[in-house]
């Protein structure tokens, strides 16, 4: 093919995700999309500027990576610190950290579903972009929008009632946590459970109705198979906080099971590309081309043998029927998986809040620097998150490696964009709704590209169709 006839579509910025990114779609002379690239065009530099700090500062510094999943960063970080010290957290301290982690997961999933994604399902992919957001949702589905906002509030209130802060909580320390939970706060959190459960069930009904009414679209929405990575408990049950790693292939065959997260480098390698600040991790034994794997809610449900709690288990059994107990590959099912996880979290929170030792005052063990290396892992809302530190003898950080969930989904996201773009974009006649579907493929992964940058559909949005000489053939602009 003559390269001078190539055309390119640029979607920049991608809206209703956390962070800044753009998409370029390369088209051939027949107007068919041949290549898709998801560019993350911001640079954070945490791995570099944390060098030289004391390792115990990392749980606080790394929390600032993100305003949506700060607890996950702190948990992975504090586990790495505990490996450095060779200390275990106290029972109550660990329970409180687990509760905070659940709270953040609920809050993040509520944000992803109700605030960012549900406008597409309830208002329509082709509806007015200016109203296709949480505010537009509130105009038409007031009760649902308020419920979504309150569910997020519940998740954040867990953190606030334990540490005094909703977002970047203080006091998660190696050996446990700094503050015990008061009986008053325990009761206040328990009071939220019925409402939170009800909201999740409403959300599940919304997504199931959408599945039923749009079966063809849902099933064909980027169903390209990949490998999956997630954390499971000793019995193969779904886990977010503690547990071991499990890799499964596209047919659900377990490739690696009960792998200690400390061994992650034996199974995961990374490749850099010159067009994005996001690296491309892959399953090492299979190489870059065949080793594309996904993490996050869909992956966790695909690797898990069962859920821990009854209501979530009932939904999980229905989820498993989608592909006859094999992994569910359709990218659209991320939303359903997210809601099942949130339901599981609410049930789990109720169990934890009823634990007799949850208000125990012995919340922290104390230790000093003992080992040079620390590796910590947790399941962030968007997937498996690794923190890896190397220290000097005095505890000063020499090297930091952060393997973030969104990074691990990066190769798969690029593939999903290509799938959806090839399905919906043909020729020069591009409608805004088509591009929204391409963006929506990204939104399924709920990527977290920076610290809590939320564009609620009000960001400028421009698509340019340009030829390889840089000449603009067509422009579609969305106003602020």
């Amino acid at each position, binding site marked *: 093919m003559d390269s001078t006839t190539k055309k390119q579509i640029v979607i920049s910025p991608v809206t209703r995700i956390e962070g800044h990114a753009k998409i370029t779609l390369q088209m051939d002379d027949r107007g068919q999309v041949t290549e898709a690239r998801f560019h993350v065009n911001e640079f954070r530099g945490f791995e570099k500027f944390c060098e*030289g*700090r*004391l390792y*115990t*500062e990392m*749980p*606080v*510094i790394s929390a*600032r990576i993100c305003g949506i999943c700060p607890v996950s960063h702190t948990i992975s970080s504090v586990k790495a610190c505990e490996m450095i010290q060779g200390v275990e957290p106290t029972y109550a301290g660990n329970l409180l950290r687990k509760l905070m982690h659940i709270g953040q997961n609920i809050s993040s999933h509520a944000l992803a579903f109700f605030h960012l994604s549900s406008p597409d399902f309830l208002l329509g992919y082709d509806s007015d972009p200016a109203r296709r957001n949480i505010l537009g949702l509130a105009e038409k589905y007031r009760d649902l929008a308020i419920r979504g906002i309150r569910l997020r509030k519940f998740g954040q209130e867990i953190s606030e009632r334990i*540490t*005094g802060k909703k977002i*970047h909580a*203080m*006091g*998660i*320390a*190696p050996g446990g946590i*700094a*503050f015990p939970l008061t009986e008053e706060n325990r009761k206040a959190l328990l009071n939220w459970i019925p409402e939170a459960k009800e909201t999740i069930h409403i959300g599940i009904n919304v997504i199931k109705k959408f599945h039923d009414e749009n079966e063809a679209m849902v099933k064909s929405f980027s169903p390209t198979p990949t490998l999956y990575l997630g954390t499971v408990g000793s019995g193969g049950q779904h886990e977010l906080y503690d547990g071991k790693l499990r890799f499964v292939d596209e047919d659900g065959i377990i490739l690696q099971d009960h792998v200690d997260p400390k061994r992650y480098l034996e199974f995961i390698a990374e490749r850099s590309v010159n067009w994005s600040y996001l690296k491309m991790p892959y399953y090492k034994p299979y190489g870059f081309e065949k080793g594309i794997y996904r993490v996050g809610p869909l992956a966790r449900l695909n690797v898990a043998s069962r859920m821990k709690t009854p209501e979530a288990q009932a939904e999980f059994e229905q989820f498993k029927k989608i592909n006859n107990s094999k992994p569910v590959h359709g990218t659209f099912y991320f939303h359903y998986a997210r809601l099942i996880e949130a339901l599981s979290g609410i049930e789990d929170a109720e169990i934890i809040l009823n634990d007799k030792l949850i208000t125990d005052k012995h919340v922290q063990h*104390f230790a*000093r*620097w003992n080992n040079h290396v620390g590796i910590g892992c947790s399941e962030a809302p968007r997937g498996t998150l690794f923190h890896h530190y190397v220290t*000097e003898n*005095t*505890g*000063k950080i020499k090297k930091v490696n952060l393997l973030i969930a969104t990074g691990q989904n990066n190769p798969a996201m690029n593939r999903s964009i290509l799938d959806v773009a090839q399905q919906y974009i043909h020729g020069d006649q591009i409608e805004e709704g088509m591009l929204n579907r391409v963006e929506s493929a990204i939104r399924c992964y709920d990527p977290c590209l920076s610290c809590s940058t939320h564009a609620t559909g009000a960001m400028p949005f421009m698509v340019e169709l340009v030829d390889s000489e840089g000449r603009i053939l067509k422009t579609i602009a969305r106003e602020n």
Partner: protein
Amino acid sequence: MSMTKLTLQIDGRSIETESGRTILEVCKENDITILTMCHLKGITDVGACRLCLVEIEGVSKLMSACTTKVADKMIIRTSTEKIKRYQRITTELFAAERNHVCSVCIANGHCELQKLAYDVKMDHIRYPYLFPQCEVDTSHPLYVLDHNRCIVCTRCVRVCAEVEGAYNWDVMNRGTNVRIISDFNTPWGESITCSDCGKCVEACPTGALWPKAVVQGQLNKAPEFISDLIEKRKMKL
């Protein structure tokens, strides 16, 4: 030294006191608020931070209240627009000189510099940040010295010398290159004078000196404990 009674005026109030006292001491006794950073009750004042500047009638320049002794019939003003402007400038310069990042600082919520910034209503900084490359000394088994957060108030230097008597801390260089040093600029963990007492950590107004055992949210310095200790030692029970 014999004390003589004298009368002076502060912010329009007539106050009776005794000679030999500093303006700061008299103000504190009379509940007149004066901002300070380098002052710590009981140790020698050095007038380093320039926050306690006051106007004295008949004196053309501002004087530091912590190092200026009261005199009979002195007319002092502590809260004029000029003083407030200088205090704001001084605070902004503290913030611009090194790398103060409250959000990740161990002292967040328990920091005298942070409180000062609130007191002077510092909502932005008009000076370019210097972003100096500063060392973090983690060599001591119990404590950390982070030069990024140091404002060179020298409370640690004076407490170590005057209260503990160890003389571990000193100051080297000039201007923006000034640094607190342990012994003859050796890692703190290798000091042969430090007694590990931790008084310098308690005296430090920011997150420059902190115990390794705590994380953000757990730091609770008590510099007043140093002042109480000095008072108790004077009693010689």
